[in-house]
């Protein structure tokens, strides 16, 4: 008996499809095609916006633009104060919201007795994440600017932005903490570690990638929102650098709004608008990259 001889093959049931099977195949192809189309459309839309901003903004950006103070209501000169303003606002907001958010997430996920109370807290947090930014602006105006007497200042604006991004950071951090296996906690506790040692040494480091993903999202939001800073910090035209956190400052998104809609020579300052938009994108990108570098560091260090 030859071992190379092929077996007799019956083909009917595997290779022949009826009309129903062909229809099912067609439906599948159509669905996939549609999904692919939608995805490509989205990418195209984002790509077009970025392309438009880069193409039109790049010529406007030069050393003068990023290092000079604005003149003639922003029609000439640079946007240095707005750059400084946005960076300091975002830094303050992240600096306040990240520790607070992580602390809340740790409390909710690691310490709090789970029950109706924590469910309500979570509901409140998720609801806060959906509150329109203008409402946060009004809240900041009432609390930080007026009641606490910070005035329109970097402090008031940064804290307002921190409130706005806090829910995102809490939710992202808690989700990340949830993915850390229970066995890491048990293993640590069984070695005689306290709860806090366990969380600090054997849970949080592994949760950092997820926490930093939430931070990346928050950076973009904090840098880009106009309504909260409009009410709490942003100056229409203030060609000086802030001396302290109690000073008012210009900010990129609001400056962009002013240039695009409030400026008497809106058409003439169009390159300035594009340049400002591009710089805003670059700053968000730069700060997010920083967070991503940290995230990759933690990802590479702790694998399981």
């Amino acid at each position, binding site marked *: 008996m030859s071992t190379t001889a092929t077996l007799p093959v019956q083909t009917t049931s595997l290779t022949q499809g009826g009309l129903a099977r062909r229809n099912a195949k067609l439906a599948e192809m159509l669905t996939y095609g549609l999904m692919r189309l939608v995805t490509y459309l989205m990418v195209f839309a984002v790509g077009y916006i970025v392309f438009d901003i880069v193409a039109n903004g790049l010529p406007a950006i030069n050393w003068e633009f990023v290092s000079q103070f604005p003149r003639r209501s922003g029609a000439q000169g640079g946007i240095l104060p707005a750059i400084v303003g946005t960076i300091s606002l975002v830094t303050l907001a992240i600096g306040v919201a990240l520790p607070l958010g992580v602390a809340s997430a740790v409390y909710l996920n690691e310490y709090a007795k789970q029950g109706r109370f924590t469910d309500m807290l979570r509901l409140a947090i998720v609801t806060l994440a959906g509150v329109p930014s203008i409402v946060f602006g009004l809240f900041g105006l009432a609390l930080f600017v007026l009641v606490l007497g910070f005035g329109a200042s970097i402090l008031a604006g940064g804290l307002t932005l921190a409130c706005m991004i806090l829910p995102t950071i809490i939710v992202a951090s808690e989700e990340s903490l949830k993915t850390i296996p229970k066995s890491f906690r048990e293993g640590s506790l069984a070695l005689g570690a306290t709860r806090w040692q366990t969380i600090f040494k054997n849970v949080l480091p*592994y949760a950092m990638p997820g926490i930093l993903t939430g931070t990346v999202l928050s950076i973009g939001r904090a840098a880009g929102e106009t309504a909260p800073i409009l009410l709490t910090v942003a100056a229409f035209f203030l060609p000086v650098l802030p001396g302290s956190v109690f000073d008012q400052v210009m900010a990129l998104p609001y400056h962009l709004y002013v240039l695009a809609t409030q400026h008497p020579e809106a058409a003439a300052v169009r390159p300035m608008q594009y340049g400002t938009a591009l710089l805003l994108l670059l700053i968000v990108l730069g700060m997010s990259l920083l967070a991503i570098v940290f995230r990759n560091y933690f990802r590479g260090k702790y694998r399981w």
Partner: protein
Amino acid sequence: MVIDTDVLQPQHSDKTGLDVDPGKMGVAPSAPSAFSALSVEDQPARMNTPFMDNFPDPSQPEHPAETLAPTKLEVHHVNFFYGSFQALHDISMSLLQQRATALIGPSGCGKSTFLRLMNRMNELIEDTRMEGQILLDGQDIYHPDVDVVSLRKEVGMVFQKPNPFPKSIYDNVAYGSRIHGIKDKKTLDEIVESTLQQAGLWGEVKDSLQKSATALSGGQQQRLCIARCLAVQPKVILMDEPTSALDPIAAGHIEELIGQLKKNYTIVIVTHNMQQAARVSDYTGFFYQGELIETGKTAQIFTNPKEKKTEEYITGRFG
């Protein structure tokens, strides 16, 4: 007596490939059958199970000095509740120093719950309640003044699924020592080396201490977890089905290790594998539906159980 040896010994049950040392098991080397001392009337059908031939002869004293082994853990009328469900009913048991005690019983019988009472790990579960006393060296471990951190230093635990931390091998073993305040690099190096040696892992990992522990094989991971546990110098080691996630060869390594460790530590091991219980333990407790049905020397429990339930379980009629 008539014992069909073909039925009794159709195959050796140590499928792990582990060579069971008859001396360790307390089987008299000359005895071809462990049951030769028993009359036929004492031998119901259960004796036909293949693994029985490994079992020690109860008539042979296992450790001549057995009765002298001091009690390490004294469990005194313990009840345990998850919410309103009572998981353990009036458990009393003594766990002897430098002996391995196996806890056996069907799933959900409360043996793991019982194990986790001894380092107070059950406290991590919300809405649980414990009644009774557990004494470690005469000290009530549930006394309000007892520091649970110090207790868990004394009573280490090895889990069912190997749970190495996603750190380097070195950092895993040094974790407990660092937690307890040892910072000196040289001291840590020594602890890491000696405990890895005790756990029989040093030879395999000594050149890759900085590699991630999660890259080790399952059996190596479990030995690493044992090393990590030894590094904080416990007196008691609780093992919750330590080999159930491992292949037979890796399980064999762990069993060998347990045999060595019990010279210095008090070992309590929960297992579903009855051959394992017979191989590694000196004493056995059989749990059923939250009650400790029977406890005694392993040899006696497996060859001549007093309770009908125990007999039914070890012969595989349920469980």
